[in-house]
């Protein structure tokens, strides 16, 4: 057991968070706050696990998981974009809905055995680099590598392409985009769908790769909410989201590991003295989320970067304001 192994597991764990965070960044960039990430991840995890079992192919499972989460996200899209309802309340209700559906349809899934999982492999050459190769390029499931590719792609898309510029404009100043002849409503439906797909992918990464299986609400255990918090910390920037995602992943693994704190922090895992102190360690990722939010909002204040200006506001044609 050494540091590289713990960090390697942390990167794997962080991948699920990364997908969900990237999805929420894209959704929020279009001006829609979707608080249903936790529910959508759970639905993605449940569907992909069940479908992977049914078809005997994990990739088909992932596809179904993403589609299920994407479809359920359209409930939020209809309510917030077309019916112009409050995005916070709608997101919360989406969360209840998706969680409930996952629990009902996912009943009994935890007794399945031999469900096909995402394959793991080394990246040739890169995995030979000492330490870094072990942490980032060896023995990971395919989805982890997909995550590496997705971060720069998402950054490039948002900042350097024409549709990405439209996306940012929709979130900042929808009436100007509307005047340009771009369909604000359609754009928002689409990016809510993309956010759903990625949340579903995050869920699938949990149930088919990181910690295989479906254990009701414990499958995601609040990671969707952490992702929503990470978006604020990331200041709607995919690169920062990647940092946040992997750090949180490492933190989640760390608390499971007996020797981790000694290697990383220099003191023995309190779990070692009294197994019940582990409950305090389990609080860490959640407490850390709050701390990260404090850091994030202070920094945003200082650098004067804020959320997309139209975030949380319904776009109503012809109405004054944004």
């Amino acid at each position: 057991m050494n540091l590289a192994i713990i960090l390697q597991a942390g990167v794997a764990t962080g991948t699920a968070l990364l997908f969900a965070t990237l999805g929420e960044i894209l959704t929020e960039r279009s001006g829609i706050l979707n608080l249903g990430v936790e529910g959508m991840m759970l639905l993605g995890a449940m569907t992909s696990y069940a479908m992977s079992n049914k078809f005997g192919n994990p990739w088909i499972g992932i596809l179904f998981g993403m589609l299920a989460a994407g479809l359920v996200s359209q409930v939020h899209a209809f309510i917030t974009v077309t019916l112009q309802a409050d995005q916070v309340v709608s997101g919360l209700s989406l969360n209840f809905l998706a969680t409930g559906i996952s629990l009902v349809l996912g009943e009994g899934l935890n007794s399945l055995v031999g469900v096909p999982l995402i394959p793991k492999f080394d990246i040739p050459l890169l995995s030979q680099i000492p330490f870094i190769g072990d942490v980032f390029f060896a023995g990971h499931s395919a989805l982890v590598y997909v995550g590496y590719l997705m971060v720069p792609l998402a950054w490039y898309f948002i900042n350097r392409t024409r549709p990405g510029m439209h996306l940012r404009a929709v979130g900042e100043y929808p009436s100007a985009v509307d005047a340009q002849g771009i369909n604000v409503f359609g754009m928002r439906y689409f990016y809510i769908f993309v956010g759903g797909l990625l949340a579903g992918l995050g869920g699938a990464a949990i149930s088919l790769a990181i910690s295989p299986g479906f254990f009701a609400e414990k499958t995601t255990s609040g990671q969707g909410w952490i992702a929503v918090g990470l978006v604020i910390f990331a200041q709607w920037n995919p690169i920062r989201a990647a940092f946040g995602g992997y750090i949180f992943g490492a933190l989640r693994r760390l608390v499971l590991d007996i020797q981790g704190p000694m290697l990383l922090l220099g003191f023995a895992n309190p779990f070692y003295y009294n197994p019940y102190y582990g409950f305090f360690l389990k609080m860490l990722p959640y407490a850390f989320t709050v701390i990260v939010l404090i850091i994030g909002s202070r920094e945003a204040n200082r650098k004067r970067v804020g959320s997309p200006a139209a975030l949380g506001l319904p776009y109503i044609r012809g109405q004054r304001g944004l």
Partner: protein
Amino acid sequence: MSESMTSNISPKGRFPFKLKIEPRLKSPSGWFSSMLSFLAVVLALLVGAGIIAAAGGEPWRAYAHIARSSFGSVGVFSDTMVKAIPLMLTGLACTVAFRMRLWNIGAEGQFFLGAWGASLVVLAPILPEETPQWIFIIVMSIVGIAMGAIYGFIPGFLKAKLNVNEIISTLMLNYIAVEWNNYFIYDKWSEGGFQMSKVFPRNAWLPRLADYAKEIPEFRGLTVHFGLVFAIIAAVVVWLILYKSQWGYEIRLIGDNPKAAEYAGIPIARNIILVMSLSGALAGLAGMSEITGVVHRLQGHISPGYGFTAIIIAWLAKLNPFAVLLVSVLFGALILAGREIQPSGVPTMIQGVIMVFLIASDFFMRYRIYFARRKEE
């Protein structure tokens, strides 16, 4: 405005009527609003039936079972009320916060801390076991309320002083509260290695109707406890605060128009902290009444998500404290009967569908929809 909101549902010129959607100039009557909510719930139950059927269940039998095993007799109705009491108090907690558009999603965690605070009185111990019952109840209420209030104060302070999003922070605190409780039931207060504390002494129990069965035989076996009185008093207090006090006026003004409130010189940061603390206090009282009225010991599964159901209750009750009491009874029935229904996720799912339809139905409060005769073009 009205021009752009007009939409056609039929191809041009075929159908002599067209659907018109116009913003309402004045809000519709309370009667309309209640009917709308009722319709939303009915539709939600129909959709829920569809999902249950898709999962291989029998929806009508499930619904009939919910109705029978929660309203079928005085005895089961009493059990329904027992489930409704924590919902009433957490529902009121959400009502106060939501009225200021402060999204306290942490009623669940504040409930756990309230329960922990009440247990602290017995298990620390703060009071000896032979303390009279009324002193026990008063002290446990105070400690439970205080713990809930502190747990509401934290996200309130973070929001007011450091601009931390309260939705995320309250949610994170929920998970922390559960682990906090777990530590105490597994280690500190564990009884004989089981994951629960010892049973509280009789003096630390809230009185139940069944305790008076000697004097009034009809009360035999009725589990409704004194927490119901707490809930009713709390509803009156919340109503007085929100609608009859200057503070309530400030809360409502901030909720409706924070800019106007700021220009009027209302201290927003202070109100955020106070309202979050009040909200936490109510949820803490819910935890205290549940632990002393029903469970009588600290253990793991003291809440089937009361704090989350409370969000829906507050919304369905349109943030009216007295409506919260009534709506809580319905959801109490759902939770009580839901325990025996397979698959086990049915109550959560039904709550979600109800909430979705409820928020969608709000559209009809803001827009008028009617058929108009198509003019010759």
